[in-house]
């Protein structure tokens, strides 16, 4: 009996050892971690005052996904610490989907929230960088300062790797941007076409509110009544609410939420394909030979800084011709 017991014990141990020994030599189930992985962009120059996202900036080189990214050892160009990049700031985020169909500023505000985040963030698994719109030149060093250096730690169960000395060079805020304007308008004195250089678009920040106004001036800086622009779709001019004309119709004002457009990646009826807000002022008159002729001035723009903004369209050569032939 004794012998039998030993035998059983020995065989059990042998089997277990065999099983363990074999399993122990198996490769572990780890993620592939390729040496070919790399950041395809190593210097980032976000313009401050707006939320900038840098995507498609990492090549995983056939590593298993997802990888985990973390920004580490952020420092100024001279090696001194840069606590401003680690500190949390209140940033404006979206909590609901922006569609362009919202009917009031309240509705838009309900979809936005403020959350505390570092200004320069990396997507934990996507590797995308985000510079939040709260960042401004009074917080961060901006170009021509050489900016910051930082490292990124990329890891997965397969390994860990540091990408050293990526650069961040914040650019000074630009509160607004505009693109190429386009028009088909005749001058009232020469009756010739006014070219782009004859029409200026000015952006003025006049207050701390949340409004946007449009004005037009002739070369003598006399306001032009917006009533002349009868074909303008005033209600769909931009994603703003409570449209109000001044008593002399020289100014139109909307309550808006900033930035404009609210999301540069969502295409709405207020934006063009390149993510700019797009306005068109149009009218028609009876032209040569009694034909109806349509005239307009249109331009894309973005406004990043919140405030009471007025946009002035200044006809610097001659006033538009509104009267019929």
């Amino acid at each position, binding site marked *: *009996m004794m*012998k*039998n017991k030993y035998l059983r014990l020995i*065989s059990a141990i042998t*089997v277990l050892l*065999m*099983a363990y020994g*074999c*399993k122990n030599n*198996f*490769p*572990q*189930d*780890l*993620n*592939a*971690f390729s040496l070919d992985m790399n950041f395809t962009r190593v210097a980032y120059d976000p313009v401050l005052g707006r*939320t900038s*996202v840098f*995507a498609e900036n990492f090549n995983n080189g056939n590593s*298993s*996904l*997802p990888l985990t990214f973390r920004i580490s050892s952020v420092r100024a160009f001279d090696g001194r610490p840069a606590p401003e990049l680690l500190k949390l700031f209140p940033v404006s*985020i*979206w*909590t*609901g*989907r*922006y569609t362009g169909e919202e009917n009031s500023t309240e509705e838009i505000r309900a*979809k*936005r929230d403020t*959350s505390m985040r570092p200004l320069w963030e990396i*997507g*934990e*698994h*996507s*590797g*995308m960088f*985000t510079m*939040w719109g709260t960042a401004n030149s009074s917080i961060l060093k901006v170009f021509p300062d050489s900016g910051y250096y930082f490292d990124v730690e990329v890891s997965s169960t*397969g390994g860990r790797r540091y990408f050293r000395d990526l650069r961040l060079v914040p650019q000074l805020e630009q509160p607004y941007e505009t693109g190429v304007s386009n028009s088909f308008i005749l001058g009232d004195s020469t009756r010739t076409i006014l070219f782009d250089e004859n029409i200026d678009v000015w952006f003025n920040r006049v207050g701390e509110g949340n409004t946007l106004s449009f004005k037009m001036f002739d070369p003598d800086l006399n306001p032009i009544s917006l009533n002349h622009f009868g074909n303008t779709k005033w209600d769909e001019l931009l994603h703003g609410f409570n449209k109000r004309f001044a008593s002399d119709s020289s100014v139109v004002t909307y309550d808006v939420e900033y930035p404009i457009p*609210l*999301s*540069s*990646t*969502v295409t709405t009826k207020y934006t063009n394909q390149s993510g700019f807000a797009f306005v068109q002022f149009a009218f028609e008159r009876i032209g040569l030979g009694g034909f109806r002729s349509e005239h307009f001035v249109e331009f894309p723009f973005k406004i990043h800084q919140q405030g009471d903004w007025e946009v002035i369209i200044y006809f610097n050569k001659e006033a538009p011709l509104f009267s019929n032939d």
Partner: protein
Amino acid sequence: MKKYIVTMLTAIITLVAYGQQVEVSGFVQDAENRTGIANVSIQSTKLKRGVGATDKRGYFKVSVSADDQLLFNSIGYNPVTENLAGKKVLIFNVYLSKKQNAIEEVVVQGYMARKQETMTGSSVRIDGSQLQDNPVSNVMQMLQGKVAGMNVQLNTGQPGARTSVMIRGLSNISQSGAGMDGFLTPTSPLYIVDGIQVDDNTDFAYGFNTGGVGISPISMIPPEDIENVDILKDAAATALYGSRGAYGVIIITTKRGQSKVPIIQYTTNQFLSVPPRLRATIGGMDERYARINQIMTYNNGDVWGARDLVYNNPILSDSLNPYYNNATNWQDVFYQPRYNQTHNINASGGDVTYNYKINGAYYNERGIIQNTGFSRYTLNMNAEYRPTQRFRVMSTMSGNFGSQKTGSGNSVTQGGVASASSASSLLPSPSASFVSPDIISSLAGRNDNRTNDLRTTLDMDFEVLKGLRASNQFSFNYISTRTDNFTPGIANNNNPVSYNYDSQRNVLYNLTRLNYLKEFGTHLFSTYVFSELKSTDFQAKAQQKFGYPNDQLEGPFGFNAGSALGGILNNMAELREAGFAGTASINLFSSRYIFDATYRWDRSSVVGSDIPWRRNPSLALRWNLDKEPWLTERFDWLDFLSLRGSWGKTIVPTGTIFDANGRYTYAGYFNNNQTIGFDWERMPNTRLIPSTTTQLSGAMEFGLFGNRVTTTQELYYRQVDNMLWEKPLADHNGFSKLNTNEVSMVNYGYEFNLMVRPLGQDSELYWDISLNGAWNEDVLTMLPDNNREFLLRDPQYGFHTLYRLGRNSMSHVLFNYRGTFATDADVPINPANGEALKLVSDGQTYYFKAGDPFWTDVNGDYIIDDRDAVVVGNSQPKLIGGFSTSLRYKGFTLNTQLSYTYRRDIINAALANQMSSYSSPLFGEDAGRKNAALLPLDQYLFWGQNGDVADFPNPFDYQRFGAIRPYRANQTLFMEDGSYLKINYITVGYNFPREKTQRYGITSMRVYLTANNVATFSRYSGPNPELVTSTGYDRTDGYPTARSYTCGVSVQF
């Protein structure tokens, strides 16, 4: 005590009657099937010598003294003693029951029959009687669930097709094709049919672009003619088949003549194949309203536009038109029950000196899909002549003809039928006024595949000196296959197409062996050496022609002769293999300790020229503890107990001679001369070696309580190295691909087999229960170039397969389905820009909304794309096995076989596809002729309106369907547990008592009823969890497995 008294009394009575001679006669029959047993020796216990034997019918007549006791003894049966004393009637029947002692069974291991108690390797013998009573086109179907560790899956219902057989897990992980069309490189074990090596892995259509016909060579063997099947699993058992034995070996032995007087046995099966329950569809008016309703609701809120869409679609709007006013059940057009039959006649006779057998079989099965089926005509003969104890010669000849019709599909799938049977029910059934290419090619196309298989062997055996035998085995196998396809013009844009393929394969095999046996007291030493040579030639030709003048005139070229294709295919090959082996076996103390060692050297022309002979050793031990006196003394209830273990290497050639040696091909013009140059497609690998399997296994076998419980418990570790893998090369190499041996994997697991006989030997009722199972784990251990993982991309459907070290060899790569968005507010929002979770399709952005599936955005970029797939699942089953029970009471028998598969992840692509039927309510470009059968949705909880918490996403949003693809199959929503329990068959049989049939000259007669493929129990929501591809995808166009009901008669004259 009572027994003793009775015996004493009889003894006293016998003493009185001593001296009186009587004539005793009667029949000796098998207790199970009531057939006569020939050559049963009859011994007188009194005279202590044999007094006679039975004839071929089992009849005996002996003259003994009236008080004698007769001992009836025959190999393989339990001896029976009949006491004549006191018997009034001296004509009686004796029933011998088969020996159920597992340890005394004889099993083949390495060209030699050995007793089970001396077996060092792992092997299982299935008796031919277990393969009867159920007509199947491929005998491997009958073995499902019978052998622990052998995974048999009927992944197609096409009659005559190959059955997937894997012994101890995966052996090759390379796939042809990818995803849904991906098929694992087949790794069927090596079959040895009457000494001839039969390869089930070549020469048949298994994948989708493989040349060859779809008939498995195993389908050519009539089950009625099988004496037994041996399944050899581990390295020790397969060691001597080492040059091809890495996937395991299955030895099929056909019947021999055993009776002095000729026996003629006739068996017929009449069976009805019935299609399984097919998928439900919405028919007629319901389909019309379902579609109209969908269009009206989901046309982006534009009701008037929706109305126009309906009006402009006559199938929907013109409901009074008889052409569109139908409720056709398309599946009934193609799937129908069929009545089939088989006939088998077997004539055999002879004795030890000379015996013979002739078996003729006819099998015809028309498939449940129209225009498909399989028929087989075979004639097998063998004869053995043994003039003296020293010399033996045996010859077999076998001619087999198989013919398979596959309709418009191939041997695995039925794409044409699947698409044609998914036509809209609103269309009229096929008639002169309504045809579609798929219907015509399914019903009227021709797809005939034929195989002619001729096998001959000649074995000679001569005892040169005492203990030294020389033998030679020679075999020749000629297989010619042919495919003949024709697609009528109407099925192919008025352009009839014919395709012909034929191939020839010659296999010549010779084995010469010297065998030496020496006994030293209770010890036995045996050794043998052999050499084997094998030569295989293969050539295939194909031609394809287009544009015949009409469907009747097939030839000679068609009007488009320039586009006719034809010639010898580039898979022609001449293959030579040679092997030398030596083996030594030591058997100590009357089989108490057994030690086996084998060593073999192999070389073949598919091995690279820089590689010397492959050397494959194996070692095995067995310890029969029941022969140890210290053990048996203590436990008298222990019948036998033994431990065995083995280690060894076996190989199987992979790749072709071109992989090893390169290929010369026509290389265009040079200096105005046609030239032959090197083929730059694939770099020759002069170091190419065969796939190598190293196995370690240990087992314990024991039997208890008079063999009422016998069991085998086995652990194994099986490592497959040097798997063939195609590697792309950097373009500056000149060559573009290279086949290497850089993939390894491991299977390890546990197998058990348990046999229980709850009732004793003397019970009238015989009951036998058997349970077996095998738990297998597989791990990938090496990939080429030391990579950790490799993704096999499926560009078409996105069913990628991931190979990653340390995991199960093949994993699914799927989108993680977390549910359906109940409302728009549930969709995650990108905080940076206010965008909802989106996906980009064809440059267009689609935002997810209520009713859409919620797939995990793994990388958190708020975009669903390939980078968000997760690695899950294992398409290979964890646990497989079977359960069988056999009941016998007098002449009645009841046999049941079940098999199970547990823990297998399969992708229900069929459901995904059917759910997608709502994606085009306006029928799309196929005008309802395919992919238009609507699935009734009442049993599915799907999203219908805002706020619904649903299992399935919204199937109706057809405008965004193509972009979002909510019912894409590569998501975890469709990954289901493919575990199942299947009742393979139930047979009720009755053996007529001999007395009743005798007057008609019938020595035995048996009738039986069998239900095959009775039921499958599974939580799987698709039609059949077994009918999936080897990588675990349930295709919609599979060939469903028929259920069949058989009525059979077996008569012996």
